[in-house]
């Protein structure tokens, strides 16, 4: 096989503060025709940046400072921008991005966007173009593809948009497709379909693929070779199976450990048989604004949901986005009013509990580490606020307690006077946890606490939660879409779909013998990379 792409010693630097910050160094990869390569690394490892350099989409402050890119025996450095966009970008090399919601232009129809891409690179009639557009929409298995040409992006779901994105990328039959975390923003069940689709299309079209992801599990499914990046450098490369089986670099080993650790058994809390939370038939609906001559439409976010949570138990609520799992959590926390039903915490109606008492019983931890902390306050202030609001304590007592809690979540004293923007995502999440546990609540509601974090950080935060759970004997309601996290962490699982509970039971039972059709689909969509899987070769 001949070389399709050869990148030698690529170096990308950021112009900042009068000095060059090297973000990618010594990046060399070699890609054959029809080969698929996975690039794995955490955010900030330079995996996306190096591919943006290849497609000349680097942000303004960044520039390629050295290195050569040879594509199909042509040195791309010698091409000027105009020729590059005309001949290479979008024609020979296409790229799919992470966020399907923003990657399509909302004011143009799907058809127009497809045609634009096709006609720019091919000198053919509009009819031919439409023919080709329909052909490619069919190829990406867009349901009812014939009607889609006149539709606008907002009329499609996230998965469908990503299919259109793939169609856009493939309409010119590229020889190389770069997929930058194409499934991260999608629901798990859709994720698997999209990855399957990309992998199928690669074989039928016969193109090479570079698949960027933070998820080793996904990469192991789709790529022949894998490159592991850390801090802008390649730390390991080789055949996917070999790397997974026998990682040479400690970092790769660490990544794998993080994945495998989720399989291990963990310490369980003492669970009492008495329920701490009783949820009885709660419902929440939203009215859409009324149209003329039409009754206002009512959408149920949560429909007659009932369950109990026992003292010390960890219960997980899983489901895709829009299934109502976050709404349930907020209702239990008293942050949203429900329409019907009853939520009892320790035998008391949630509405009857004083807000300051409620704060001492139940606390939330949120998903996004960037919006969970108020950027204008110091960490000390943020963590001490629950105390100053709810308890009368002297300033020095409060400070002492805050520092104690910060230590407990693994942050040293010096973070007291820092601001959130000086912390990494994982550290912010630790602060958010500190704020939640400083009042010593008995219940913690964790709404996807780790899904915005990198794999290694994710496992650290899970460890922390696990640790706190046994130390403080907290009951946890965990909301997640990540089955491996749920499996590692929870005693019982509740599966929600369209606002209703469709399955509930012991973690192992639900994962191994799912009864409901949707649960089955959900469980099979997990790319679990197990120790046993690799042992074949």
């Amino acid at each position: 096989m001949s070389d399709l792409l050869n990148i030698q010693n690529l170096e990308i630097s950021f112009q900042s503060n009068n000095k060059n910050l090297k973000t990618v160094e010594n990046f060399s990869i070699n890609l054959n025709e029809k080969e698929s390569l996975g690039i794995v690394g955490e955010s900030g490892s330079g995996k996306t940046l190096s591919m943006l350099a290849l497609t000349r989409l680097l942000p303004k402050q960044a520039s390629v400072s050295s290195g050569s890119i040879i594509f199909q025996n042509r040195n791309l450095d010698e091409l000027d921008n105009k020729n590059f966009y005309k001949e290479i970008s979008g024609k020979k090399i296409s790229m799919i991005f992470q966020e399907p919601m923003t990657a399509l232009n909302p004011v143009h129809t799907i058809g127009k966007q497809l045609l634009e891409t096709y006609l720019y690179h091919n000198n053919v009639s509009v009819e031919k173009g439409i023919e080709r557009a329909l052909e490619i929409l069919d190829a990406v298995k867009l349901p009812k593809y014939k009607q889609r040409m006149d539709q606008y992006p907002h009329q499609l779901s996230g998965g469908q948009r990503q299919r259109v994105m793939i169609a856009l990328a493939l309409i010119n039959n590229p020889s190389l497709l770069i997929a930058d975390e194409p499934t991260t923003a999608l629901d798990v069940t859709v994720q698997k379909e999209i990855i399957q689709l990309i992998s199928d299309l690669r074989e039928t079209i016969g193109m090479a693929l570079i698949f960027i992801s933070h998820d080793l599990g996904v990469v192991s499914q789709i790529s022949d070779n894998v490159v592991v990046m850390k801090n802008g450098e390649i730390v390991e490369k080789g055949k996917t199976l070999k790397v997974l089986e026998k990682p040479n670099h400690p970092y790769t080993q660490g990544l794998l450990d993080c994945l495998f650790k989720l399989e291990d058994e963990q310490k369980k809390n003492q669970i009492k048989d008495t329920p701490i939370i009783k949820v009885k038939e709660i419902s929440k609906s939203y009215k859409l604004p009324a149209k003329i001559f039409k009754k206002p439409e009512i959408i149920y976010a949560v429909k007659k949901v009932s369950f109990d949570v026992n003292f010390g138990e960890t219960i997980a609520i899983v489901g895709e986005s829009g299934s109502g799992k976050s709404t349930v959590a907020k209702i239990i926390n008293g942050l949203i009013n429900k329409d019907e039903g009853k939520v009892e915490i320790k035998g008391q109606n949630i509405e009857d509990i004083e807000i300051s008492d409620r704060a001492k019983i139940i606390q939330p931890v949120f998903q996004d580490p960037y919006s969970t902390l108020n950027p204008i306050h110091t960490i000390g202030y943020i963590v001490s606020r629950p105390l100053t609001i709810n308890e009368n304590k002297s300033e020095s007592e409060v400070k002492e307690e805050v520092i104690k809690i910060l230590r407990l979540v693994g942050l040293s004293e010096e973070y007291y006077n820092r601001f959130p923007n000086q912390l990494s995502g994982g550290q912010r999440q630790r602060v958010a946890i500190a704020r939640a546990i400083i009042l010593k609540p008995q219940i913690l509601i964790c709404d996807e606490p780790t899904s915005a974090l990198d794999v290694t950080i994710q496992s650290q935060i899970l460890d922390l939660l696990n640790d706190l759970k046994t130390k403080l004997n907290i009951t946890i309601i965990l909301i997640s879409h990540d089955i491996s996290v749920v499996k590692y962490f929870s005693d019982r699982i509740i599966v929600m779909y369209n606002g209703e509970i469709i399955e509930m039971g012991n973690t192992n039972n639900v994962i191994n013998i799912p009864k409901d059709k949707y649960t089955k689909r959900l469980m099979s969509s997990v790319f679990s990379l197990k120790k046993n899987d690799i042992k074949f070769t």
Partner: protein
Amino acid sequence: MIFKTFIKRLFPRSFDNEIYNLTPKDLIIRKSSNHGGFKFGLSLLIIIFLFAIFGPIIFDVSPYEQDLTKRLLPPVWKEGGTWEYIFGTDGNGRDYFARILYGTRISLTIGFGAACVGMIIGVTLGVCAGYFGGWVDQVVSYLLTCQLALPGLLLAMTIVFLIGPSITVVIFVIGATHWAFFLVVSRSATQKIKNLDYVTAARAIGASKFQIIIRDIIPNTFSQIIVIFTLEVGIAILNEASLSFLGVGIQPPTPSWGLLIAEGKEAIFFQPWLIILPGIALFTLVVSINMMGDGLRDITDPNSKVSEE
């Protein structure tokens, strides 16, 4: 360059090399010391402030003292001008330089005073509308529509005419007719912020609505409000000039720039400096404030591309 070394002396921490260790304040200082327009506008404004405060003390000539024997003397660079009267004299033989100097005080007082009044009204209404939503939002939006439908200057003229002109009245009238921008900006900012996780977290730890508004919401809208504030200062200064020019603002003999222009308009062909000089003063002040406002917008916008050099 001088500006930068000065700022560096004042805030040495902001120029430590590690961006990671900077507080939000440090970042703003660092960004502002690299923004040309902001530096120029701010420097000019500081100079104008110094003039307004210390000018009349150093240049000890009364702006009210008339000397009818020395009417309409030309400024020093014109034929017949003397260094005794740098900007010449006006129709009543008053020293024009002293009058413009005093006018600076009036313009600044009214500009900043009126913008403050407008900010208090607008931000209060906007934050309430954004945070509480529902009928509060509808009432406020209705008020906004009314305010936008009224011709501001005409309204201000009527009110000043009815109450009687004085500096305080002019400040409050201009302020009371200029809160629409504040309202719109703080309302939309509040709507965005109230859905963020840290507000939900504050509710969960038992913070009251008032605490949330004061501690979490208003400080985070501040960066946007300050931009509107500077723009409104410029607008208020121009408004005061218009009102005074039309005779319903500051009353003679108080030397407001708008009034100076009004008084000079009869002599526009023969003594044009009577209009040109206060005009230049007005122009310089408003441009400096607007440049600073533009700069502030760039600096406080987290996505701005002000180089962190």
